[in-house]
């Protein structure tokens, strides 16, 4: 490749012993390229440093309290096992058992529903598959307390269904009980399964199914035969579904609470929320949650052991979508419709309608008073703006870290990748409040203050907290796409003269651009509507939007709070729309075509 520099053409690319210009735009690119190259060199250690500081340290500090309460002034003993012992009896034990089986079932629901959806959207020509695929991201982005609250508002005795006259006791009991909890958590696990399976389907060539069919398998039989090849993806989905379900607080605090069906996360929050709080007891529960993650990981290891799943080859044949018959289309659309109705439609209806109904009134009076209050009260603009900024910054940092972590996870399983896998999954299993409190313990040490480092209650620590709590899920979401990147793409670019930066841009970025955008959006909306970390770590005087909303939801301004939540959700979605629209307009066509399986329906 001939490069024109201010000094005239040079033949060899910079950084390879050729002439290196010292000024001008080319020089900047060289420097950037060197930085990128250096980043790749130190990428792994940097990631471990990030994981160590931001994730491991706070969690370890928090969990240490279970056996060492005196550590952060939370008790008098330097060592005790009483808290751990106390976990195995009474209501805590009950709630733990509840959480275990609920999460297991929810994870299974996630894959049982997510797999067919991924197959239908990826392998058939069902109409509207783009919309359905995009809507799946919507299900993922929505914080769990919104659907939960929405369902509750729908079926509770004075809820929307009753008000419009079609309420019934069995409906209420069905939703406000273990069944409803499992259903909601299961629906929440579906997007993870969908993403994992879709990414794996990208690499699954058509010939495996063709071979099965020419040797006598029916269409369904061929899918059954081929499905185990997607084993790693399926197990990964189950593991993350389990971890997300067991750490979920949104459903535990709303639906499960109202159903008098306690989950471990709620007990954990209670330990912290009681006054004086018992952090050691909460830490003991944290240990149980972390340990529970070993279950899906062990089962996964057992199931995948000894088998090879190397299917990706350069000659993998392009998949052709199956033409659905009319009946097939109707069936598929019906199934998809039911899923989205349950996971988005109903909760949205419940949430929006309860914000539209006047707070106190025995009739079905629709009033925009709540929304009016939201918009006239000057208080919300600042927090919203702040949340937007926090969201953008956090998402950008997290995506980089997540990409590095995903790269590590996608490579062959060495001891350190297994460790990273476990750490990240365990971090998902811990509720955010543990993170937040752990941050206070880890970073508010007197020793640090003595040397002048006061980062507790600063925006910096808040953003670090956001990043740390988003990183694990972000990494897992990217693994599918990153594992498809063939190193040869990058090598080819470099062999043809690109610098490090150019090689990455030309060889790697196009394949992962879409998943990166989606992962960015996932983190962005998560931060925007995130609560526990915001509550405990925000810098006084600069509240994010979610804190503001929660204050209203918690007291008599319920309708206003819901209206605020709806508005915030809309703003988050509008931002999503802007980013996606921008991507569509600005990204080269080729980028959008490749790697589309990850995000496209």
């Amino acid at each position, binding site marked *: 490749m001939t490069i024109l520099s201010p000094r005239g053409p040079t033949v060899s690319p910079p950084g390879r012993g050729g002439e290196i210009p010292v000024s001008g735009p080319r020089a900047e690119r060289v420097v950037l390229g060197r930085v990128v190259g250096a980043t790749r060199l130190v990428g792994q250690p940097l990631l471990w440093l990030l994981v*160590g500081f931001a994730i491991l340290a706070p969690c370890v500090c928090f969990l240490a309290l279970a056996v060492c309460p005196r550590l952060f002034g939370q008790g008098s003993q330097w060592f005790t096992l009483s808290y751990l012992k106390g976990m195995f009896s009474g209501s805590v034990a009950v709630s733990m058992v509840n959480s275990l089986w609920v999460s297991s079932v929810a994870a299974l629901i996630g894959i049982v529903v997510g797999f067919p959806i991924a197959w239908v959207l990826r392998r058939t020509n069902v109409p509207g598959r783009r919309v359905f695929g995009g809507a799946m991201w919507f299900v993922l982005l929505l914080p769990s307390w919104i659907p939960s609250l929405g369902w509750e508002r729908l079926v509770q005795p004075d809820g929307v269904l009753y008000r419009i006259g079609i309420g019934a006791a069995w409906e209420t009991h069905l939703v406000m009980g273990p069944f409803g909890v499992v259903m909601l958590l299961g629906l929440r696990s579906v997007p993870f399964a969908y993403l994992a399976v879709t990414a794996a389907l990208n690499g699954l060539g058509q010939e495996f199914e063709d071979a099965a069919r020419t040797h006598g398998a029916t269409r369904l039989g061929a899918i059954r035969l081929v499905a185990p090849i997607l084993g790693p993806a399926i197990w990964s989905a189950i593991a993350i579904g389990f971890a997300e379900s067991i750490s979920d607080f949104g459903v535990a605090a709303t639906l499960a609470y109202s159903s008098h069906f306690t989950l471990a996360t709620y007990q954990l929050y209670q330990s912290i929320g009681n006054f004086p709080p018992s952090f050691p007891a909460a830490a003991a529960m944290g240990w149980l949650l972390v340990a529970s993650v070993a279950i899906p990981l062990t089962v996964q290891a057992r199931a995948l052991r000894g088998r090879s799943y190397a299917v990706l080859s350069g000659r993998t044949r392009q998949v052709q979508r199956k033409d659905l018959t009319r009946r097939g289309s109707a069936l598929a659309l019906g199934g998809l419709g039911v899923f989205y109705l349950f996971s988005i439609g109903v909760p949205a209806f419940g949430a929006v309608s309860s914000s539209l109904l006047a*707070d106190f009134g025995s009739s079905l009076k629709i009033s925009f008073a709540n929304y009016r209050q939201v918009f006239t009260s000057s208080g919300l603009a600042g927090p919203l703006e702040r949340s937007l900024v926090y969201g953008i910054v956090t998402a950008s940092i997290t995506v980089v870290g997540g990409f590095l972590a995903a790269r590590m996870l996608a490579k062959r399983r060495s001891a350190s990748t297994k460790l990273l896998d476990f750490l990240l999954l365990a971090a998902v299993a811990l509720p955010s409040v543990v993170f937040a409190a752990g941050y206070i313990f880890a970073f508010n040490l*007197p020793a640090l203050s003595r040397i002048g480092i006061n980062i507790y209650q600063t925006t910096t620590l808040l953003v670090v907290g956001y990043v740390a709590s988003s990183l694990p899920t972000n990494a897992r979401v990217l693994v599918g796409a990153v594992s498809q990147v063939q190193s040869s793409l990058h090598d080819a670019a470099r062999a043809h003269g690109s610098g490090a930066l150019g090689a990455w841009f030309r060889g790697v970025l196009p394949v992962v651009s879409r998943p990166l955008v989606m992962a960015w959006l996932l983190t962005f909306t998560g931060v925007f509507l995130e609560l526990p970390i915001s509550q405990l770590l925000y810098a*006084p005087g600069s509240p994010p939007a979610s804190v503001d909303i929660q204050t209203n939801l918690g007291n008599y301004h319920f309708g206003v709070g819901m209206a605020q939540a709806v508005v915030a959700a809309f703003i988050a979605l509008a931002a999503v729309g802007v980013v996606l629209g921008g991507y569509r307009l600005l990204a080269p066509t080729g980028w959008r075509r490749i790697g589309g399986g990850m995000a496209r329906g």
Partner: protein
Amino acid sequence: MENGYGSTRPRRAGRRRVAPALAAVTAAGALAAAMASTAGVAAASSAHRSTARAKVVPLVVYSAQGYDKLVTTTFAKKYHIPVQLDDNSTGPLLTQIEASKNNPKWGLLWVDGPTAFAALDQQGMLLRNWEPSVKWNALGTQSIPKDKSFTPSGVTLVAAIIYDSTKVKHPPTSWQQLLSPAWKGKVGMNDPSQSGPTYPLIAGMMQYFGGVSQGEAYFSKLKANGLVINPTNGPTLAALGSGQIQLALVQSSAAVGATFSDKNLKVMYLKPATLLPGVMGIDSKAPKAEQAEAKLFEQYVLSPAGQKEMQFGDPTGDSLYYPVVQGVAPRKALPPLPAASVLLTIDPYTWGARENAVNSWFTANIVQ
């Protein structure tokens, strides 16, 4: 393939083991620092926050009150003291305080309910033996603790009885009446583990009936008579509004606030009505300069100007309180204060210690 993107630079052997070790070392370092800190916390406590700067130290206020934004802003403007407000629900505030207690970062706490303050005081976290110089009224003097570790700013009552006057023609005249069949399934209240003001209600009833077990008996009977539990004021009042219940036991400020949007709702008090003061307390470990500012803040809050801000800042919620200083009248919408014989004060120290146990009993027996 092993090297990811085909980097041809030879990797140092053992690099992979170094990186996770880095993480472990970091975490271990954090733990070690924690232990060292805890051991040395006594020596460091008074010097940890930099007072080298003789400049104005910001006043960090942790508050759950609905009017706090207005009051702090006005205070800051008037006295040119920067105020950083952590406006949160009570729960997270207390969590923050407890979690950071080896290195506190707050100056003044302002929430409803003295039991939390009693607990803080027992841990030595509050500044003692100081009260602002104001003229207290009867409500005020009842709410000041012996060691003057915290200061009331206003009082609400629990429980206020709020009922739908279109449905309830004969409001109850005693708590015992609520146990009768006429009220079966029509009464609602909050869950004390979710709703801060509800525990004082329960504690007050227990004190009135003679003790914890007597109070448990009453609530068990109430539950047997179809008591409906909701997490907090909001859902309880919504249940009232939709007709699921006809009478609710809530905090007086919430009750009066509800009457604004529905004229059919009426508020009354039964004997006893427990006092629930909104309370301010100062961090004993804060730097002297900040403590001085906090004292000035308390003085301001209880001044006529501050009281006006308080009554203006959250007109449908927290502003509906009964003042604790002489010369300030409550907002007109409030029902008149019941006679002193109806009012009941609970000792936050005694009852604060029982809070967890009582709440747990309540959750296990009444909420479920």
